[in-house]
């Protein structure tokens, strides 16, 4: 770190808000000369301009550039038609990564919703609810790298017959009498092991939202159902669940996006070995290990296409909320 860096950081912290404020202030003085109608037409766009430039640079430009790269050669330049896509959709490693990503987004969010629902409802009935929710929320303050470190320790493997160093294997061998399992090395098992880390990390988020949803259900509905003779299960399926659907949908889509983007957990715990590679780690490897820009971009676009339904859904959801304003 060069000596001037902290100073530059401070300059940015103070300067950027000031500059933006100055932009707003000065632009107002300039357009004040025009008529009110002209002002109202131009003002929003002037105020928006810096933000749009930033988003354009960091979001829109990369998207378009990646698309262009995906039609290029290994440096991303030139034009090779659909060759990179052909490669991506026939290469066994890429296909496996695609499969694993689909596995992540199909399995993990559903399991998380079910678990979070259970915990939210149960916690609602005890006095120490705040403690439960805080505890499951702690992992959301930790990086997925640290979560990977924590669980790498849990998954540690010692050869059979030796005392087990990892907690999971120690419990497993003493309870079942079987040999220890190399949780992060066995194909198949490793995927589940990684997804468990994701579950540990993300349940807090799901529980907090579902808990708020559960508390938002008017008590009269539940009372009415119970008075009508419904048992707890029926109350759950006929009152609680339908009321929670909007919240569940929001949590589900967020989790699907997170599961699709997952990189840290796989990178840190297994490095993508033994078939655990997902699309995100594959893209990284193509770009930075194999130095194959065109191929990396093609996989990235495939990832993007899988994410498009989520993007469309977000638009639809926000628009719907708007119409209820």
């Amino acid at each position, binding site marked *: 770190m060069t000596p001037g860096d902290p100073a530059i950081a401070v300059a940015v*912290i103070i300067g950027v808000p000031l500059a933006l404020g100055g932009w707003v202030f000065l632009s107002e003085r300039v357009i004040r000369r025009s008529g009110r109608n002209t002002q109202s037409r131009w003002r929003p766009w002037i105020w928006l301009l810096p933000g749009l430039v930033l988003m354009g640079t960091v979001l829109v430009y990369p998207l378009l550039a990646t698309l262009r790269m995906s039609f290029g050669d290994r440096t991303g330049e030139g034009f090779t038609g659909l060759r990179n896509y052909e490669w991506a959709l026939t290469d066994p490693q890429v296909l496996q990564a695609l499969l694993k990503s689909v596995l992540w987004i199909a399995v993990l969010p559903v399991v998380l919703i079910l678990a979070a629902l259970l915990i939210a409802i149960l916690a609602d009935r005890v006095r120490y609810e705040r403690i439960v929710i805080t505890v499951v929320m702690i*992992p959301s303050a930790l990086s997925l790298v640290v979560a990977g470190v924590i669980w790498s320790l849990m998954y540690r493997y010692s050869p059979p017959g030796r*005392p087990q*160093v990892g907690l999971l294997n120690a419990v497993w061998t003493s309870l079942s009498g079987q040999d220890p399992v190399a949780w992060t090395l066995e194909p198949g098992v490793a995927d589940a092991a990684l997804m468990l880390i994701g579950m*540990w990390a993300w349940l807090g988020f799901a529980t907090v939202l579902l808990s708020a949803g559960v508390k938002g259900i008017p008590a009269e509905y539940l009372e009415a159902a119970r008075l009508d003779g419904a048992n707890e299960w029926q109350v759950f399926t006929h009152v609680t669940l339908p009321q929670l659907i909007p919240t569940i949908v929001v949590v589900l889509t967020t989790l699907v996006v997170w599961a699709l983007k997952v990189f840290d957990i796989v990178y840190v715990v297994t490095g993508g070995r033994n078939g655990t590679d997902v699309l995100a780690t594959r893209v990284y490897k193509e770009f930075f290990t194999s130095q194959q820009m065109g191929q990396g971009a093609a996989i990235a676009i495939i990832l993007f296409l899988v994410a498009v339904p989520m*993007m469309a859904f977000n*638009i639809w959801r926000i628009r719907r909320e708007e119409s209820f304003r």
Partner: protein
Amino acid sequence: MRRPSVGRLAVHLVLAIVILFWLVPALGLLVTSFRTGSAAATSGWWTEFAYPQFTSSAYRGAFEQVSLGRGLLNSLLVTIPANVVLVSFATVVGYVFGRMRFRGRDVVFMLTIALMALPPQMALGPLFQLFSDLGLTGHYASMWIFQGGFVMPLAVLILRNFFASIPDELFEAAEVDGAGPASTFFAIALPLALPGILSVFIFQFIFSWNDLMMPLVLLGASDKATVTIQIAGMVGSTTADNQTLVAASAIVSVIVPLVVFFALQRYFVRGLMSGAVKG
């Protein structure tokens, strides 16, 4: 209405298991960080309680060998300016979407929302090349720009909802008093939106502190590496002997986010929720 005691017991049991399942792994990390290297290599961390040999040597090693102190400083130098940038830009954009009516507003707003789910893998290649060409790779500024901009859609959504929910009367009164749009923004809207701005800042601060992929790409394992990069690098080269070093480093790296989380939990949770569910 009396519930059967068996059901009651089951509820407590399930919740107890949940609490254990969430705390025990973290406890393992904490205990491991205080063990000697040879102890960690040969026995499970729970045995430490029977034959305690606690030492803080791993922590010393973390600061001396891994330069964790520098990593912490780097993390701060990345996250604070980046999130100031994010919040500044998102506040103005959110205000425009939330309080101004103009042709094309909804279209641009929807496009912004669409970008919320954009995977960061899109940014990997092009931004790395762009920043390389500009000579910014290996500099904090590349992260300030990236983190400042990439999460803007979510921040804009949250802040726009905040501004939109300010009662119209306040703005009408200001207009009657002759306040111009800029004064209204600075004097009325901004102070009212402070809680929302703070929520976004805190919530994104933790996320950017914990980010791995883009910092790894833009800063790498250099002298500007954030703690997250440092720890990820250590796990890769983990032998049986440096478990304690990794553990101690990990513990140190989470102190700042945890303190922020516990001290400002309300803001953090609100930020988390308002992005997902309408405020």
